[in-house]
């Protein structure tokens, strides 16, 4: 790496990092405020829910309860409290699950990371491959076929694909488990345990990945087509480079930039997509937790999930900005 480009990279990375307190933090704070206020709009609070569960109707007991939980204070004070607690990683207490929300999410988060992480990698690899086919065969029969298949993948509801995959691979063929993240009551260890986990991971990860394979392939294809007529590709052809070098080295490198750009928001999209897919596959992750929180109307948990997702998206976008600074020399500002 030349000294000048190293210096440019360092300066630009510094700028990205310096912007965090001015751009990322206010956005995160706004996301917290909006999530908190949105979910406090609902009539009835945690005490109402609990009181109905234990059939408590004594007004003074209820008032005391509310006071103990701080729910009788103004919404502004409660919000301030919430933010201060968040800074200490305290997401509140769920009276429906009877445990701190932070430990509840801590239990579920690893499963979702495993699922979304696998789907993320699978989508990028297969998406690039499918996109490259168009780079080779622009407008040809193969390109048209892949484009049609990709558009179809882009159109199919993921929860439905999941159900069909379960039907075929678990019910009919009995190759893979119906759902869950591991076999219960088998007490496996070592390689058998990992194998069991992997078998459970295949279907949900493929389901979550399918849509994004289509998204990534369409992105790669579009930028491949865009790059095709540029001078440096003509130069490469004129130099007599073979087709594989041109497609894989010269064209793909530029086609990858838009993929990096969408990677940050992809984290958020996958967390959203995980809701239906984890529900379909009984996957014990954060998505299914969000679904359960909606069913049980546990808004402390739902607020925490919204806030945490916002944090992940913002963090991922900062990382993406840093990566882009180093791989795209055109970025100056």
């Amino acid at each position: 790496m030349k000294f000048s480009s190293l210096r440019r990279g360092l300066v630009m990375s510094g700028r990205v990092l310096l912007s965090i307190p001015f751009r990322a933090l206010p956005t995160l704070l706004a996301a917290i405020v909006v999530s908190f206020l949105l979910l406090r709009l609902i009539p009835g609070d945690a005490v109402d829910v609990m009181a109905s569960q234990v059939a408590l109707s004594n007004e003074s007991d209820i008032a005391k309860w509310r006071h103990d939980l701080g729910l009788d204070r103004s919404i502004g004070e409660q919000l301030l409290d919430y933010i201060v607690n968040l800074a200490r990683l305290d997401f509140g207490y769920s009276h429906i699950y009877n445990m701190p929300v932070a430990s509840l999410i801590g239990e579920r988060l690893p499963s979702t990371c495993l699922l979304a992480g696998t789907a993320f990698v699978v989508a990028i690899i297969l998406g690039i491959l499918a996109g490259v086919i168009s780079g080779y065969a622009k407008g040809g029969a193969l390109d048209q076929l892949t484009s049609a298949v990709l558009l179809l993948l882009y159109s199919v509801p993921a929860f439905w694909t999941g159900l069909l995959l379960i039907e075929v691979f678990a019910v009919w063929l009995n190759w893979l488990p119906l759902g869950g993240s591991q076999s219960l009551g088998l007490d496996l260890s070592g390689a058998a345990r990992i194998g069991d986990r992997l078998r459970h991971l295949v279907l949900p990860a493929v389901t979550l990945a399918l849509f994004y394979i289509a998204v990534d392939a369409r992105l790669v294809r579009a930028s491949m087509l865009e790059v095709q007529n540029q001078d440096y590709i003509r130069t490469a052809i004129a130099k007599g480079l073979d087709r594989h070098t041109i497609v894989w080295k010269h064209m793909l490198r530029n086609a990858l930039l838009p993929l990096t750009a969408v990677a940050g928001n992809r984290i958020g999209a996958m967390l959203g997509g995980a809701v239906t897919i984890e529900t379909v596959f009984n996957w014990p992750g954060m998505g299914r937790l969000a679904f359960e929180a909606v069913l049980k109307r546990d808004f402390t948990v739902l607020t925490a999930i919204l806030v945490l997702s916002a944090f992940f998206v913002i963090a991922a976008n900062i990382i993406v900005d840093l990566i882009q600074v180093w791989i795209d020399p055109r970025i100056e500002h």
Partner: protein
Amino acid sequence: MLALLKKAYLNNSLVSGATLLSVLAAVIIVAPFLYPGDPQSMVAPALIRPGEDARYILGTDGLGHDLTAELMHGAGISVMIGIGSVTVGVFVGTIIGAIGGYFGGLVDDLLTRLTELFQTVPTFLLVMALVCVFEPSLVVIIAAIAATSWVSVARITRAQFRTLRQRDYVLAARTLGYSDARIIVVEILPNAIAPIVANISLMIASAILLESALSFIGLGDPNVVSWGSMIAEGRDYMRSDWYLIAIPGAAIAATVFAFNLVGDGLNHVLNARASS
């Protein structure tokens, strides 16, 4: 204009997508005549398989609802939510994007921050939370989906306005003393609209997908049939009667596919024109 029409006619995805959409429109129009009354009423024995009984071509579900009737009524609901939410989203997004892009400065800064905020919270989680807070009904569902779909419109519109506001004709309009509102609506907007329009069909497609996921997890309007909730109900019979999930899912896929085809076609026709 004629050249544009010819180009549209020659575009395979646009033509096949439009054909599919006309079939869909026909289904929506004839549904209330072919199957008047509530499609969610018990009309037949439960679990008649597709093709078993000529009166119920697609069979019946576990509660004895006619699948054909539910499917045809569901089409109207899906499309209405799709088009409704996108209309609201495009309207709001265009206004916000136009104001930010045209005026620039502090206003633009604030609106950009607002757009970023909405991109930060995952779409599906936000829609889910909104519907959950305000109770599921058609209006709430449309508003909740619109609350997430305006973002992309605002970004496109803002970018368009930022380039176009420096053009000579805008300067001329300013010199003539036209009001900002008039310049935005009459002078710039017609020139900025192509990429917004090109995007609409794709937006409807994703709105329909979003709605199907919502009703699948039980956050649809409980008073109307929806393809997503049909699939959710079919899950109970998955082992024996898989047609109950296969059929409504195929309907969602075909509808979304049609809107995506038209969207791809429109993008091709309109954007190629913009760049030439």
